[in-house]
């Protein structure tokens, strides 16, 4: 029996293709195969002999079967390996091109600012960009002859002769949205209002259109100290590092008291770094909402008080991402859009961070 085993195992090992293996299988275990013949002899044996020869024969059969299966799979692997050896590609060739879209820094920063203020309970308010002079000026305590009107380089819309209303303006700031939000929602209130604003000014550092974000919070007892805290929290989250602020007395017709806000920075080799050093950089105007503004929007100034602030989105983007030239924001140069833009899925969130 051992001879038989050795004979077939050797034959299996020596087979070079599948048909040779099949021949061996038939030779061993086909109806007339050697193993089958041996099985048939079992009937002639005594029960004792059968007791030992039966299992031995079954074992032999299993051994040959699995040897054939193993050899079959080995032969298939070898054949596959042989085929794959010819299937060679230059994988250093580039993949199929996919267009890479980008989000403009203004949109990205607007989303970043929105995410941070959302956590502090500020909703997003909106208003029209062609604005009546009442919303843009009068309601904000800027009467018709106030010097602020001329200083703001206002764009005026055409008025037909016979239409005696004062001409509409392109909003010079996002502050009119304060009025609209207060008139609509009353107090208490927390909103920010990002958007395009317009001033007739064009030079190295000014464009006739830019972006502002307005903030407004009204409640029973909000103070300038709360304003300072909110801004420090905001700037620290926005720049991803602790940022100190400095409030300086100033004047805006719609706030009283008013303050300009500086953030801590350092200047190194012409580059500004926020959140370190001993210098100060002016970034926004703010103050406690003027009682006349509250009244104009239908909020009782004896019951409610709060703060408002406004800052430039483009400016924030320039500071945070080191973008040098404001005018390039609106030029749509593909190289610029790709270089300073953001991936579509970089949606700023507080849990994922707002710093890219």
């Amino acid at each position, binding site marked *: 029996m051992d001879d038989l085993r050795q004979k077939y195992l050797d034959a299996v090992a020596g087979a070079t293709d599948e048909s040779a293996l099949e021949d061996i299988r038939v030779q061993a275990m086909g109806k007339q195969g050697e193993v089958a013949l041996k099985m048939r002899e079992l009937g002639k044996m005594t029960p004792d002999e059968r007791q030992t020869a039966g299992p031995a024969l079954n074992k032999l059969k299993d051994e040959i079967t699995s040897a054939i299966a193993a050899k079959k799979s080995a032969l298939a692997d070898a054949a596959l390996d042989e085929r794959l050896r010819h299937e060679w590609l230059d994988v250093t060739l*580039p993949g*199929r091109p*996919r*267009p890479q*879209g*980008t*989000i*403009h820094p*203004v*949109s990205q920063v607007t989303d970043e600012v*929105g995410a941070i203020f*959302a*956590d502090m*309970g500020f909703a*997003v308010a909106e208003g*029209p960009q*062609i604005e009546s002079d009442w919303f843009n000026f009068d309601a904000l305590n800027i009467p018709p*002859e106030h*010097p602020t009107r*001329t200083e703001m380089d206002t*764009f*005026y*819309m*055409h*008025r037909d002769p016979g239409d005696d209303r004062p001409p*509409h303006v*392109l909003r010079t700031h996002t502050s009119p949205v304060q009025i609209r939000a207060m008139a609509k929602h009353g107090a*208490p209130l*927390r909103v920010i209002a990002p958007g*395009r604003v317009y001033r*007739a000014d*064009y030079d190295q550092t000014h464009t*006739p*259109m830019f972006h502002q974000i307005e903030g407004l919070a009204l409640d029973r*007892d909000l*103070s*300038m*100290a*709360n304003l*300072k*805290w909110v801004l420090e929290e905001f700037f620290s989250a926005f720049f991803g590092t602790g940022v100190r*602020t400095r409030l*300086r*007395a*100033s*004047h805006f017709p719609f706030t009283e*008291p*008013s*303050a300009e806000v500086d953030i801590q920075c350092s200047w190194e080799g012409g580059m500004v770094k926020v959140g370190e050093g001993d210098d100060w950089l002016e970034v926004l105007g703010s103050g*406690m909402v003027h*009682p006349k503004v509250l009244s104009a929007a239908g909020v009782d100034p004896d019951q409610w*008080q709060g703060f408002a602030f406004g800052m430039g989105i483009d400016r924030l983007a320039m500071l945070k991402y080191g973008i040098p030239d404001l005018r390039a*924001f609106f030029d*749509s*140069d*593909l*190289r610029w*859009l790709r270089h300073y*833009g953001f991936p579509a899925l970089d*949606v700023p969130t507080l849990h994922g961070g707002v710093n890219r």
Partner: protein
Amino acid sequence: MKFTLSWLKDHLDTTASVEEIAEALTDLGLEVESVENPLDALKDFTLGKVRSAEKHPDADKLRVCLVETDEGDKQIICGAPNARAGITVVVAKPGMYIPGIDTTIQVGKIRGVESHGMMCSEREMQLSDEHEGIIELPSGEVGERFIDWLAEHDPARVDPVIEIAITPNRPDALGVRGIARDLAARGLGRLKQQEIEPVAGEFASPIGVTIDASLKQKGCPLFAGRLIRGVRNGPSPDWLQKRLRAIGLRPISALVDITNFFTYDQNRPLHVFDADKVEGSLRIHPAKGGEEFLALDEKTYRLEPGMMAISDAKGIESLAGIMGGEQSGVTGETVNVFVESAYWDPVTIAATGRRLKINSDARYRFERGVDPAFTLPGLEAATRMILDLCGGAASEVVLDGAVPDTDRAYRLDTDRVQRLVGMEIAADEQRRTLEALGFRIEDGMAQVPSWRPDVQGASDLVEEVARVASLTRLQGKPMARARVGVPAPILTPMQIRERDARRTCAALGYNECVTYSFIDAASAALFGGGGAATRLDNPISSEMSHMRPDLLPGLLQAAARNQARGFADLALFEVGPAFHGGEPEEQHLQVTGLLVGHTGPKDVHGSRRPVDVFDAKADAEAVLAAIGAPAKVQILRGARAWWHPGRSGMICLGPKKVLGVFGEVHPKVLREMDVKGPAMAFTIWPEEVPVPRRATTTRPALNASDLQPVDRDFAFVVDAGVEALALLNAAQGADKELIDSVRVFDEFSGEKAEAQMGAGKKSLAISVRLQPTGKTLTEKEIEAVAAKIVQKVNAATGGVLRS
């Protein structure tokens, strides 16, 4: 507003340094824009004494001097004619920078003799133009710093100049005295007393003044003046010239310089007439309109009815409160001068100034509001200075009108101040602050000083107290959350749509642009705009004259710019407002994408191809899907004129509800806008997409059958004009139960197709998926549905199965 430190010290008794003063000013709301301190450039120069001066062996004009300095005796070669033994000089040592010659001194050899430094002239130190010789000081010790010597003996020479920005609410700070008052209130010194003694008139003024009744109430409540006879109007004295020069004004003559002095010292603009050129008396009146007036700026202005003017018997002599007239202006020959001090209404001055586009110092100040109570004291002080500097004799004061009443008081609620500011400021300190600023406190009421027109309510008192207390010192205080717990979402459905549309476009490979909201008239007109309603009255250029009616022109201009830079394959988009009218509510949101050129650069896989309409359509549909538009839409023709008439479609929910449009941009539009086409584009109007009524987050149950679907393909021959959507809808309608989906998978049209199927024909192939529900379909059942599809398609489109 510019002033010098010594000028400030005329009004403020202080020992504070210029740095301390600058810091306090900024913190007080008088933001320092610059401090020019001549001392900074001179701080290293020290005094020395020339021990000996011998002729240079090789040069007649040079001397070899031995100079005693704080670092011992130094040999210095000097060419100045006055270099001689015994004089005290200013020495620059090697390594020091000399501002006047923009050079850093080195040890060097001059004609073979070593020189270890330099003795300086005034010009070399930028103190004056003096360069005749080196500085010789009458006193001073060897080694003493030159700036210390100057500060002691000639402080005006090194007077720091401070420039501050003045917010419109602070006209009082347009005078040095007002600035001094703020600093005194802050505790940086003591405001000096100002006593103005009236000058008794020696005779009656031959020139009288009257204000028209119509102007007394508002335009000109008070006009005062007086004649000064026998003046000499030469150059003003050195101190006055130096001051004016320091703040950037050109000295002209004593009389003019005196008026300028009071303008800056007290914010009290004055005007001087040459009395000999004035005929009769002066009358303040509204212009009739049409009068021409030659002003001091040598320009002629044409007055409009109602503008305020000052006239004598001959005509208009001054544009009241804005600019005097050339005809009656003073000159070097003036001997009799009439000095005017008036109070003009800010609103009237601002309106006239704006109409005539005159930006004078007087207008700037009167329109912000000068101190009405100082009208007469200002005249007296000016009279005194004219008599002192120019001689002469003053008449009695002539005047019309009266000082307008500025009396008002507001309650000082010291608790409210602290509540608003969020800082502890003692009640006593609040009262002290206001008093230092000139308020009078009586029974808790604060009486506003006449020079503070901006203080118009109790909240203005808060601002005064807060700024003097210093907002820089304010400590932040946490603001409580509006509600306890996790913040609620804050974006509105439309804001979410805008964000999703934007990020979908970027994900589809478009680069986001932000283009100007205004464009040129011609481009606006190409896109249905450019009318009067959306025109800017004062555009910054003709390229930006109209509000954009559509986002496409801005993107096309961006594409043209990029093509000019060598970038031909572009996918640009913008999300933003477009303007369909000139009223605030006539603004709507658009999402616009533009494709130009190819899908990408040439590549090894050959996947590059020109962009086409169906790229734009797919992207439009993707954006619509992202913002939750219904999947079932109609595609209608008839898009606006800037689209290719045959290659564009509107994505609609019914003929009136257009959600978006896509297609090829009209070639004529591209030509006019200099874009190398063709260009594909889409626009979505997110506000038009209906807001789904969804009360629950639960989705309907998924109905996925275990039975295998059956796919059957059909090819129909139809007229070339038949639209695929009509065919699809017909097929879909054949069996609403069984047919799961129908797709077009082939279109065969053009010459080859017509050769096979006949003129004007094309083939459309569709694939229909049948989804059995209860049991597996028999071949017979499938055949029945197929026959019905063929019949429906035939009925709807005339199409027949292709053989």
